[in-house]
Every structure is written in C-alpha cells, then in structure tokens.
C-alpha cells in the first residue's frame, strides 16, 4: 500500500506511467492524453439492505492535502431508481453526471415507456470507462452504482481502468482497508435481513472510523438510499466522535508528566 497519498507524485495514481506536467520533456513535446487528477473525492461506501441499497460518502473535494471544497455532493441520482457515489477526480465526475443526465433524457425522448434500470446504467458507465481507458484518456474515477428495480437490489463497482464487480458491500479508497471488513461482517450472509436502522448505523460507524484514520475525510457526510420509493439523498450531517480518552495521554513512552 502506497503511504504517499499525494496524487501528484504517487505512482499508484499514475497507472498510465506518464504525467502531463512532464509532457514538454517527453518525445517531441507530444502531450499524452492521460491526466493527473486534481480536485479529489475520497472514500465511498455502499451496502445492500432489506429495503434496497444505501450509499455513503463525505462531502470533501481535496486539493492534494488541502481540504479545499468542503461542501461538495458526492452522491448523485440517475433517474428514479439508481444512485452513484464517486471517488476520484471531481471534474471527470461532473462530466459523468452530465453524460448520464443526457443519457436518461435521450432514452426518455424515445418515448417507449422504457426507463434504463440500474444494471443498464451500470453497463453503460462501465463501457464508457473501459473505452476511455483503452484510449489512454481515462475518467479518473471510482464509482459505486446502486439501485433498486422491481424488487431487485443492485450494487456494483466500476473504476478508471474499467474494472467491474458486484458485491453486497463495496468500499473505495482507504475505505477498502478500514471499512470493508466491518461492512462484510455485518452484511454478508444477511443481505435481505439488514434493517434500515442497522444499515444507517453501519455506514455511520464506518465513516467514523474513516474520519478518525483517513487524513482526507471530514466529518460531514451524506447518505443515499434507493428503495421502491425512489432515491433519497440526505443533507450533509456529522457523526459523533470520541476523544475524551486522549486527555489523559502523556508523552510517548514512560513520561508521566
């Protein structure tokens, strides 16, 4: 795991092996079409529960280590029965939002009473992501796509490489390390049984862990739930956190004062 989380110098963010900042030094000054991500959305979580699916993310757009934009919505509805949560570059997410809105409108204007359901939206997005990856010009994002259509729950992952998978509990970024084990323990084997209150408590406690342990998570989070009633996204809210035990801590070893 790369401990250098600076997206500008960390090679695990430089999958394509070149950085346009150095383009003028590369062969003939030709600019390669990959990117460095700039405004960065961090970890996102998604779980399947009794009534549908639930997604969570904080509301931060980071600029390197700077918490630059602190009230950004990282959850977005696509039609009435799908929601996406994004991580990665914010400008590419804004482009994706526009692209998916256009898609839903164009499908609507065919006027045949068919509405793209979550698996369709997911497939479309995955194809776009893989296509851009093949052109060496990715949408630098990791998406969680969740939805509820005619009794069927859907939760899927797609990223900048076009990698896809579906699972009953998904987390991205550092959440994949901190939150995924907690989510799995609570969800796997009990997919249809988790109540809404349990799902909320689960996501809140995972976001709390991430707020404690991830430098690029702030205590301002949103949840989206997708059920038979449609997509509902909460206003940003904070979770409680425990700090009192720190008052008695002294030094780092044997210091008592």
């Amino acid at each position, binding site marked *: 795991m790369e401990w250098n989380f600076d997206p500008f110098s960390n090679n695990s963010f430089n999958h394509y092996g070149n950085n*346009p*900042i150095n383009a003028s030094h590369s062969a003939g000054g030709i600019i390669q079409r990959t990117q460095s991500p*700039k405004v960065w959305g961090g970890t996102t979580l998604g779980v399947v529960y009794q009534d549908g699916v639930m997604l969570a993310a904080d509301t931060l*757009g980071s600029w390197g280590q700077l918490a630059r934009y602190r009230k950004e919505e990282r959850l977005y509805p696509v039609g009435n029965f799908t929601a996406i949560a994004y991580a990665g570059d914010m*400008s590419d997410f804004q482009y994706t939002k526009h692209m998916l809105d256009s898609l839903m409108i164009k499908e609507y204007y065919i006027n045949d009473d068919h509405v793209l359901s979550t698996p369709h939206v997911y497939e479309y997005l995955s194809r776009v992501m893989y296509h851009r990856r093949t052109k060496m010009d990715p949408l630098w994002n990791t998406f969680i796509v969740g939805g509820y259509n005619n009794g069927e729950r859907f939760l899927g992952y797609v990223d900048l490489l076009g990698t896809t998978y579906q699972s009953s509990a998904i987390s991205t970024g550092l959440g994949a390390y901190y939150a995924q084990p907690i989510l799995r323990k609570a969800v796997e084997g009990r997919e249809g049984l988790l109540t809404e209150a349990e799902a909320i408590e689960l996501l809140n406690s995972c976001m709390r862990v991430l707020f404690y342990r991830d430098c690029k998570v702030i205590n301002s989070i949103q949840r989206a739930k997708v059920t038979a009633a449609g997509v509902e996204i909460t206003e940003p809210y904070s979770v409680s956190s425990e700090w009192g035990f720190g008052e008695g801590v002294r030094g780092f070893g044997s210091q008592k004062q």
Partner: protein
Amino acid sequence: METELGLKPGEIGLGTTLVAVGFDGGVIIGADSRTSMGGAYVVNRVTDKLTYVSDRIYCCRSGSAADTQAVANLVTYYLQLYAIQHGEEPPVRVAAALFQELCYKNKEMLSAGIICAGWDKYAGGSVYGIPIGGSLHKLPYATAGSGSTYLYGYLDTAFRPNMTKEETIELVKTAIALAIGRDGSSGGCIRLAVITEDGVERHFIPGDQVPVLGI
C-alpha cells in the same frame, strides 16, 4: 511552485493571489499585480489580473499568463455572441460554464486557475471557482493562486454572509495584503473591482500603500 502550476520552463506565470467575495448586492473581486517568470524575475509589477469578460462579469486569472489570456478572450467572444443572440446581458453562470467547458476539455494542455464572478439580474452576485482540472464550484467566496494557501484560515474566520460593501472591501483588501506579505509570487499593488447592478467600480491601492500586516 512552477511545476505545481504546470508551467513549462521559461513560461510566464501569474503566481498570484486572487480573492472574490459575494456580498449583499454583488461581488467584490481582488488581486495582486505581480507577473513572474522562473520564480525569480518580475515581468510585470502592475499587471491587471481582473479581466473583463462582459459588462457585469469579470474573471480573475492565475496559472499560465498565456493560457488564461487565451481562455478569457474566447469566453469574452462567446459572451458577446450570447448577448446578441439573447438580447440581454449573459448571466454569470453562463460565463462560468463556458470557462469550465474550455478548461475541462483542454485540461492536459492548460494551466489555468480561474475565478469567475459578477452580477446578473437572475442570481444577483455570484462567485464561481474553476481550478486546474476544469471542475466548477459555486461558492460564497473563493480564493486562488499561489497566495491563496495563506488565506484559507483568514477567510474562514473573517467571512460572514451578507456583509456590507465597505466590510467586504476591507475583507478582500486585507486578504490580498496578507498573501502579498507571505507569498513571493504575489506582490505589487492591490486591484479591486466592485461589481453590482449599477456597474463596476475599480479600486487601486498602490504598492507603497499596501498594508504591512503581522511581524
């Protein structure tokens, strides 16, 4: 600092401090006046970084001088076309969307950090940030450029919504002065523009009258 802004060797940069703050009745934008090259030489010490794009919409430019001038010229052109086609002044959100389109679609080739702010009859005063990368952020206040790092703490404490024009002028002026004091790539004079329904009122604080704050 240059590499961070993506400047090519020898390219002229606007290492800069930009601030835009909405208030009750419009927006106030402010900038320093230094254009630098190589992090050492001051190419222009009286630059005007507050760039007209339409009668009630200005942009503040940081990053590459050439890139931001080219983008601003294009947006000015498109807004002129908009005004003719629609028979009215363009709203600020249209100008901001145009900036986004250009900055996002050409993201690998540009180093442009832009704040677009102004007044229109639909939304009153609006401030939009378009950082490098081409994302769009509508904000109550924005800061950009190399000097902006020194201002997050100040603006987070000093800003209040719906301040008066005079209070906001003081806020912007103090912010730029603070950043000039600490950022080598920012300096010279402070330029302000107050944009309201009634027009654009320019203010100029010469370099020798910029407040020297702190130790």
